[in-house]
């Protein structure tokens, strides 16, 4: 859908918000969403939250080795997921996007297969948890190296433009990623080519322990768009509809041939950086408690209440239904068992050269 009119201005001093803390719709335009659509946003945010809780449990019970919790990012991630054309547009995600990928339709079995590194992982258990990918859905497999996916996103967008595929490349990353040289080089290339790429910063103001104040001296992340001659949108990422409508405008703007842009979604990180982190070392519990007051789910619930479509029983049933789906997929992923050790030598190249054949033989003999 191409915007009839432009709704949002880049470089706003304050983040763009459409729903206030009390849940009022404060935008100068009608949201025009059906009850069904409005509930869908809630369902996906809830599923993301439940998945996050589930992954943390898997860590505690020693069933998996790593998770980067996304609680606090749900509104931003679900806004993105609803704004792009699933299976048509491409997503270049990062490790904190499990909620986003879930909402994009990444199969639960693949999610848990990857999390457990079991044979149910299409990537054969080769990467750490929180690093999925899916060719069918055009979800570019996550790479641990921060910002290393930015230039590839630029390249894919250049290909989309040259071949007129009407696709858009959406690329997500954190605030810390904006300091990497590859972040700069990739966005600059996309912008100078006018490629249909939307770069999205999920700004939770922390890079592990490093506060944004030590990361950059810029007013916010959105203003960095000036360096590339593209619009930079500063958005309240705790507001799922602000995230959705701005992302939609940014994506359709790119699809319509108006080029690259940057979107900053201001979020909170409710958990530690990852299961390997202890954030009490660098973040006061008071600060965290204050952040938790701004939880995207209750805020959106208040919106649904104001819209008169909130139903507590429906929400409870939803929670049970989702939990059930997750548990079922988890069990199936566990059943799948271990990947074959000799797969270690596959997919280095399309075919194995002599030295990998030799190395494979060595291990095969060892395993008897």
């Amino acid at each position, binding site marked *: 859908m191409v915007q009839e009119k432009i709704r949002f201005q880049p470089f706003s001093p304050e983040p763009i918000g459409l729903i206030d803390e009390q849940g009022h719709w404060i935008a100068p335009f009608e949201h025009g969403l059906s009850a069904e659509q409005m509930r869908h946003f809630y369902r996906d945010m809830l599923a993301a939250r439940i998945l996050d809780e589930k992954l943390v449990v898997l860590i505690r019970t020693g069933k998996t080795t790593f998770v980067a919790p996304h609680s606090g990012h749900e509104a931003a991630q679900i806004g993105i997921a609803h704004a792009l054309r699933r299976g048509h547009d491409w997503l270049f995600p990062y490790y904190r996007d499990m909620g986003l990928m879930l909402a994009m339709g990444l199969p639960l079995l693949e999610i848990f297969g990857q999390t457990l590194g079991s044979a149910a992982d299409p990537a054969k258990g080769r990467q750490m948890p929180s690093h999925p990918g899916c060719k069918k859905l055009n979800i570019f497999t996550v790479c641990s190296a921060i910002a290393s996916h930015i230039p590839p996103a630029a390249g*894919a967008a250049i290909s*989309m433009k040259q071949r007129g595929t009407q696709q858009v490349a959406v690329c997500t990353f954190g605030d810390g990623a904006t300091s990497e040289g590859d972040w700069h080089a990739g966005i600059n290339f996309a912008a100078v080519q006018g490629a249909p790429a939307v770069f999205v910063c999920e700004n939770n103001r922390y890079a592990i322990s490093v506060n944004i104040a030590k990361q950059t001296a810029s007013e916010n992340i959105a203003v960095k768009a000036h360096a590339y001659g593209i619009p930079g949108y500063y958005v309240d990422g705790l507001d799922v509809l602000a995230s959705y409508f701005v992302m939609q405008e940014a994506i359709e703007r790119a699809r319509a041939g108006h080029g690259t842009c940057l979107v900053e979604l201001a979020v909170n990180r409710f958990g530690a950086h990852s299961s390997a982190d202890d954030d009490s070392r660098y973040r006061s519990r008071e600060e965290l408690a204050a952040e938790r007051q701004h939880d995207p789910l209750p805020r959106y619930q208040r919106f649904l209440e104001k819209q008169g479509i909130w139903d507590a029983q429906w929400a409870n049933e939803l929670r049970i239904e989702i939990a059930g789906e997750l548990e079922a997929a988890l069990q199936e992923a566990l059943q799948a068992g271990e990947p074959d050790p000799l797969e270690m030598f596959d997919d280095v190249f399309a075919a194995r050269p002599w030295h990998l054949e030799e190395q494979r033989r060595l291990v095969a003999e060892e395993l008897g």
Partner: protein
Amino acid sequence: MPNMTMVQAINNALDEEMSRDQRVMLLGEDVGKRGGVFLATEGLQQKYGPDRVMDSPLSEAAILGAAVGLATHGMRPVAEIQFADYVFPGIDQLFSQAAKLRYRSGGQFTAPMVVRMPTGGGVKGGHHHSQSPEAHFAHTAGLKVVVVSTPYDAKGLLKTAVRDDDPVVFMEPKRLYRAIKEEVPGDDYLIPIGKAALRRQGDALTLVSYGGPMVETLKAADEMAAAGLKAEVIDLRSVMPWDKEAVLNSVAKTGRLLMISEAPRMASIASEVTATVSEELFDQLLAPPLRVTGFDTPYPLAQDKLYMPTVTRILNAAKKLLDY
């Protein structure tokens, strides 16, 4: 058959591949109107337009990373790094993205791309226009590495690289761009990656090299031949994978190996080849496998010639092997 220099053969290969396959495109610094600083892409932008022959911003990370994205989205990018020395600001895109994409996605995503780069010394380029970084690529799983030494090989191997389904680093010894002219078929032919070329037959000893130093290696072999000593000369052409079979067969016959390369010695391709030969042909060896390599110093402009393996240095080492 037309006579071509190496740079003409490369230009011809790119031209043929671009007209054969719409997905093939070039990107890099100055590859457009300028035709590249060595003119390897001369005339191609005029012929195929600025989209398929794209001048990039001055960033190797942008070039290599965009190539990954272009490739995985279905194009066949041929990226040019203006000098091999300048691959390092962008090398993480090769190491973290290109080399590992097929593996980390379990074969779902791939990066069929070629990275062309002028390499090596001998043109008074000093620190940053003379280095030979092939060992860095060979040490990194997921990259194929080709280093050519003749116009004929350059065309045949480049065309193969463009059609390969994995990332190929294609290294062009800049001092050979215009040094040799030879007959190169004006039409389609391919040379497989991973197969060495036998440049001289002999039984006295085996000289193995690749790229730039093939010139000095062949000169040395010819001087020896004039003195009645026939050396077998193997041009690896590909260093990852390298043609172990060809090398072992020859050394099994001669019992003596001299490996010549202009890259620094420490943990180099030369180390790999001699280490492997010692492991596998221990009993057939009549003398220790020796290496003549570049030195473990930054590349000094003032000693542009002395830094690289000289014919004298090769002959001295060969003598050591034969007198052993």
